[in-house]
């Protein structure tokens, strides 16, 4: 589904990703861990197509197609979804209106008509229920005055609406209390199938207790320095990252 080869990316001439290799197949869950500032969010943004970041070398192949030249919205139309670490506020635009626009724009790109309002409403209600969201929440301005947890839940709500092929969840667990974490993880698990894939970026083992990864990668200083199974996450939880840094620097 996703194949990243020797990916180098920089922002304002500063190299941040320094040769990433990663392959994610349909049906898999990957976790990416690593100390702050190592480039996890940058990797997510580069996959999603943020223009600020310049790919200086390497390639990103999604479903057999090099997506480097595609605009962010085109990647989204192909099924790439990013749950943001810091979702932005859009004052005056309700959660409902926003997701409705997103769905219909994606349909338009596929040559489909707008979703009939009735179906849209039902879909919105079903997915809001899945994430145990209050209906009132849906008419609030997007992310404006949302608590950290509400923002993250809203991200997963949008993911549930858009049903992407590849979902990248960037620190979706931060800001969630334990109940919310369970609800959100449960939502993600319900959406998982053999045809889609999830990349979870996190600092903590606790999310991985719910969304169990097939592979765990450690990103450090712009490179994946270690990969393993889910037991690697436990090891990191116990020992921190220092031993990895030492290994790399040795």
């Amino acid at each position: 589904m996703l194949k990243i080869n020797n990916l180098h990316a920089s922002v304002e001439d500063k190299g941040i990703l320094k040769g990433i290799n990663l392959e994610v197949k349909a049906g898999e869950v990957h976790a990416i861990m690593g100390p702050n500032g190592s480039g996890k969010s940058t990797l997510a943004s580069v996959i999603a197509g943020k223009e600020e970041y310049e790919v200086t070398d390497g390639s990103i192949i999604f479903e057999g197609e090099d997506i480097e030249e595609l605009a962010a919205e085109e990647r989204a139309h192909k099924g790439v979804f990013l749950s943001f670490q810091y979702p932005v506020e859009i004052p005056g635009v309700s959660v409902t209106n926003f997701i409705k626009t997103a769905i219909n724009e994606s349909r338009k790109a596929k040559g489909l008509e707008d979703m009939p309002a009735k179906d849209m409403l039902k879909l919105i209600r079903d997915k809001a229920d899945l994430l145990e969201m209050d209906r009132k929440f849906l008419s609030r301005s997007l992310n404006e005055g949302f608590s950290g947890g509400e923002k993250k839940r809203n991200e997963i709500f949008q993911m549930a609406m858009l049903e992407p092929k590849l979902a990248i969840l960037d620190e979706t667990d931060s800001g969630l209390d334990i109940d919310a974490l369970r609800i959100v993880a449960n939502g993600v698990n319900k959406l998982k199938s053999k045809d889609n894939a999830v990349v979870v970026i996190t600092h903590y083992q606790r999310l991985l207790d719910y969304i169990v990864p097939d592979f765990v990668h450690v990103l450090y200083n712009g490179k994946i320095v270690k990969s393993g199974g889910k037991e690697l996450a436990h090891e990191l939880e116990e020992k921190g990252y220092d031993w990895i840094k030492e290994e790399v620097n040795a």
Partner: protein
Amino acid sequence: MSKYTEDDLREELKTKEYEYGFFTDIESDTFPIGLNEDIVRAISKKKDEPQWMTDWRLEAFKIWKDMTEPEWANVNYKKPDFQSIAYYSAPTSVDPNKTLDDVDPDLLAMYKKLGISVDEQKKMNNVAMDIVVDSVSVATTFKKTLAEKGIIFMSISEAIKEHPELVKKYIGTIVPIKDNFYAALNSAVFSDGSFCYIPKGVKCPMELSTYFRINQGGTGQFERTLLVADEGSYVSYLEGCTAPSRDENQLHAAVVELIALDDAEIKYSTVQNWFPGNSEGKGGVYNFVTKRGLCEKNAKISWTQVETGSAVTWKYPSCILKGDNSVGEFYSIAVTNNFQQADTGTKMIHIGKNTKSTIISKGISAGKSQNSYRGLVQINSRADNARNFSQCDSLLMGNECGAHTFPYIEAKNKTAKVEHEATTSKIGEDQIFYCNQRGIDTEKAIALIVNGFSKEVLNKLPMEFAIEAQKLLEISLEGSVG
């Protein structure tokens, strides 16, 4: 317009150029350029006006001659040469006595391009409409339905003849001839416009609407609107404006006077889309407008405006809150792009006790444009417990545009409460990327963000015009980012 689907909207958005920039080749009867007493007399004669009207115009002309153009607004433009404008232009094939069914087919085709198929308007929208092309009112629909309620809605030229006592009683009482340079000019040469009277206790059953269009080149448009809501009545009134794309600047100097007698309510909405000039700043309409309303006891006037057009806008719809407990509201969205300049805002003059005013202004600037809010809140000494709340928000797109806020507050009564809030924000790359990531392209993302920013004001418009206004916002900001 209520039939707009989102598909129609999308279709229209594909047109990058100013959408209403067609010129309809209709034979016109246009006066020679220039302004003098003879022209003023000739306009009055052409319209078959009574002597008192001719005299009123001549007095206005005399006053105007000694006035100079105001310079305090935050706009720069080449002053119009008032002697090189034609002050009267009328499509020759229009006969004021005709009904809609025998209006010139070319004119009807033009309305169609404007998106106002009159037939459809009649059927679907419950909107009674008067259409002013260049200087003359072409047709007024729904006259009969309104007449049954005693509502008078007709062109001002007709009203001068048919209801002279009403026109004479109110014209120039809210915006006096001497009020300002453009108001004086308008008083001398106004060509047409709408007149509306709602009798005591009558709630007007439909939206009343006027569509203005400048068609002929080298002409100015000077329309005059007079709206009187008698005691306890209610009316919602809409005006829309377009003009063809032309390289030269065209002058539009209108006057609107509203009178809300005791317990009456007037909602006045404007969607202004005069040609803004091209992307290099060439051409466009100079929109110098004086709009003012008077509230008697317990009366309420709301101005709602969506201003996307014109090269230069100078416009301050105002309320004189004379009666106790009267209410004035001003909701405005002003969009400027490319080289447009807008200096717009409101004046709320609190005279009566317990008077209340609300000002919500949303300025959106893109390109190299300049967008200024200028507002005066004046609380007179008698106005015990007067209240004002003002909120002025500016949204900037790019680094070359400007947003300015000039709030003036004069409070002469200690019990007054005046609150003013202002914010300035920019559409962030992060907001755009967030939308992009959800499959929304940049153009649509901007439209979404701008609509969100403007929502409090859009919500004040009647439904079908809110949709049109949203569409206009999208069109006027096309190509402004990225």
